């Protein structure tokens, strides 16, 4: 019998007669080619099952090639060392949950160095792609490949964006022995999961500060492995992370803004409530898809957008941002907005550099560097700064608004927590009284509560 990689799947051909192999992990009969086929992620389990049954086979997938290059293994803090040990004990498959700023990339580099096999790192954004390339180039003497942001260079150690990995894993999935997934919470309930299914790498390490719960967590365990260690901000703040204060400023809409907001809400809420009655348990995405089909629904969606626009940067938030920027005139600040339009409004009014998807990658990199050097005192962003970006100098955050809930909030606050001598981080959250923002604020703060430190 023969196993070969075929576009993100394993084809089992030249089947031995008299043995039923259709119950092997993930295997199905493919009438199109007259052979058995399984998603590539089942490759290790397939080999184990065939060995157990004593079936002789040849296998095209050979990832034992020595690395062309050497690793410098970084020094680890005690909790990072625990995490690596826990991952290795879990057959080198699993998710490590550590807060932002606690050195997840360093842990990943240590894992790659320890395993010493071809490795692929997956990252969600182009900015992180660049950051990982920088880190890996420092730790690995061989060439480091890059997939995404217009580049397509495959090496034994390669970094890829999620999007490029999803598009190209059917051609790459047999080339790596270890796959590291940064911000792994993006997997577990979406089409991008297929990137991990199309990959035959037996060793898998997921990293996140905000693990998914419920069915997505189960799916993630199947794709990457179980959670092997989990620590929260509260567990490391003060020792390994900068201590921080979270201040919520409750503000009022002015009478005209209040009138317009109430009018918008009165337009969309009945449509939403009617939909929820008809389709209990349906998601917001289901509502928008359904609403888009009718004129009435489209009006409801337009009213919803208008209500969000009113809350995004009303006069009280404008005044608060002005006051806070003046109060922290000597500090390095990050301003987080709900959307790009608000980011540009803040940038125009306060002459703060925006970091958005519209600003080119070299200019963003240059701005981050100037912020680190102190030549820029503040940055404003809606999404780009949310995840992974290293800005250890930031001390103060102003959260003008957000759209992504608890996970986004934890990630944003995490930007402040990279430790520095004598640093005490402060995060201000601007919330409009008597609006949906009050409940949103309560929900997103839950993600910052200390959890019991534990090895799982």
């Amino acid at each position, binding site marked *: 019998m023969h196993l070969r990689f*075929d*576009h*993100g*799947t394993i084809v089992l051909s030249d089947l031995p007669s008299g043995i039923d192999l259709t119950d092997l992990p*993930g295997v*199905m009969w*493919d009438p*199109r*080619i007259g052979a058995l*086929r399984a*998603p590539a992620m089942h490759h290790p389990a397939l080999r184990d099952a065939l060995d157990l049954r004593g079936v002789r086979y040849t296998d095209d997938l050979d990832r034992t090639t020595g690395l062309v290059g050497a690793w410098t293994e970084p020094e680890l803090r005690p909790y990072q060392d625990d995490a690596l040990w826990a991952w290795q004990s879990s057959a080198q498959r699993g998710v490590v949950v550590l807060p932002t700023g606690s050195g997840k990339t360093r842990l990943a580099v240590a894992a790659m160095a320890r395993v010493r096999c071809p490795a692929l790192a997956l990252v969600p954004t182009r900015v992180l792609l660049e950051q990982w390339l920088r880190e890996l180039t420092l730790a690995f003497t061989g060439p480091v490949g890059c997939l995404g942001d217009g580049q397509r260079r495959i090496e034994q150690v390669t970094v890829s964006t999620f999007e490029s990995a*999803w598009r190209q894993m*059917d*051609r790459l999935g047999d080339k790596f022995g270890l796959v590291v997934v940064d911000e792994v919470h993006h997997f577990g309930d979406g*089409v991008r999961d*297929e990137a991990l*299914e*199309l990959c035959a790498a037996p060793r898998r390490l997921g990293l996140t500060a905000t693990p998914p719960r419920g069915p997505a967590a189960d799916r993630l365990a199947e794709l990457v492995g179980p959670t092997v260690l989990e620590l929260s901000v509260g567990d490391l703040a003060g020792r390994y992370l900068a201590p921080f204060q979270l201040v919520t400023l409750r503000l009022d809409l002015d009478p005209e803004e209040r009138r317009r907001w109430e009018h918008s809400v009165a337009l969309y809420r009945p449509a939403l409530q009617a939909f929820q009655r008809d389709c209990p348990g349906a998601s917001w995405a*289901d509502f928008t*898809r359904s609403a*888009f*089909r009718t*004129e009435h629904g*489209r009006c409801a969606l337009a009213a919803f957008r208008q209500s969000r626009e009113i809350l995004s940067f009303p006069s009280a938030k404008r005044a608060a941002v002005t006051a806070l*920027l*003046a109060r922290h*005139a*000597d500090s390095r600040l990050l301003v987080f907005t709900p959307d790009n339009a608000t980011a*540009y409004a803040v*940038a*125009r*009014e*306060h*002459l*703060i*550099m925006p970091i958005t998807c*519209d600003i*080119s990658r070299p*200019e963003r990199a*240059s701005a981050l560097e*100037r912020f680190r050097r*102190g*030549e*820029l*005192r*503040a940055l404003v962003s809606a999404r780009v700064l949310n995840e992974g970006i290293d800005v250890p100098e930031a001390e103060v955050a102003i959260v003008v608004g957000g759209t992504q809930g608890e996970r986004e909030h934890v990630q944003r606050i995490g930007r402040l927590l990279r430790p520095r001598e004598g640093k005490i981080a402060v995060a201000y959250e601007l919330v409009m009284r008597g609006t949906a923002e009050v409940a949103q604020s309560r929900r997103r703060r839950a993600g910052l509560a200390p959890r019991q430190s534990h090895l799982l």
Partner: protein
Amino acid sequence: MLPASLICCELRGRVALPRFLGEADRPWMRVLVDECDRAAGHPIRELEARLREPVSGAPGDKQRLVAHVLLGGSRSRIDSAVPPREARAVVFSAAAREPVRPRTEIIAACAAEQRIEPTALAAALFADLPGERLAMPPAILDLGDLALRSNLLLAQALLARAFTVHISLEGNTRAVVRHATLRGLLCSVSHGKTGDGAHLEVSGPFALFRRTLLYGRALGSLVPVLAWTRRFRLEAECEVRLRPVTVTLATGDPIFPSTEPRRFDSQVEERFARDFGRAAPAWTIIREPEPLAVGRHLIFPDFAIHPRSDPARRWLLEIVGFWTPEYLAQKLQRLREARIPNLVLCLDEERNVGEGDLPETCKVIRYRRRIDPGAVLAALAEAEFR
């Protein structure tokens, strides 16, 4: 790729009918194109707003589709006194140095350094943002062209949500199969009712396990190629608005075609066709003759050749050039199974094929870089003599 919200189609039970643009849509499409023309020199965001305004007689979904195509094809320029990136670097650095100084003073001081007006510097700060760039006259002015391009995008967007595609077609089958295979799709081919007709079942390897959108782009890319067949009918199993539906496309649908598929797979084939035509003027050479059925599969010979005076003395010629070992083994196995008596196999000497791998019934000519038409004619003469 067209976003799901811009797919305009009518759902009737389990069937999705694309709402293609046609003659009746031209009056309101003209209004939109004129808006693009008028918006030249204004920020793109203004053009976006104008194209969103309801136009008399325009169905909302179709208008959104055309607006998307027009904006996607729109050209723009940056108009600023200093390059925006430079303006940002100067102004934001100055603001960081003097955090309590009023905004207007900082801009005025920076503008004086740059020797431009403060208002010009303020305007330059974000003049390169997508919405702030100035629109240029539209690239697509012909309404027919605009409709065909919009329809193609619509058809491709529907196919991008397909899991499996069935195609019945006549003519240029090989080009469609080649395109599908090159895009990593599995293509099961069977004989159609007519001589060169064929049925294709196209899907991706992973589609065996799940309804996946992984192959959406590849499946969508088949649409413009199909426009080069004599006749086709495509049925796709798709998911549209969370519902499983069937989409049908066929010859006559108003879809923008791709550029004509390449007539030859390789330079070797192209050169052989040319050389053979010159060396054997008494012979006819036919590129891509009708396919041959071999069990469940079809074989597409590269050429058919016969003396002009005697079409019954017909030979099929297959060139095996640069392919993977796996593909070559599969191809030779099919040719062996086919036992075609009048086959000439031209084999690249660099392909490591043993005599035992070759079909017994065929004539084999080995070549290096170029196939000698004289060698082919000699081999045919020898075979016919026997």
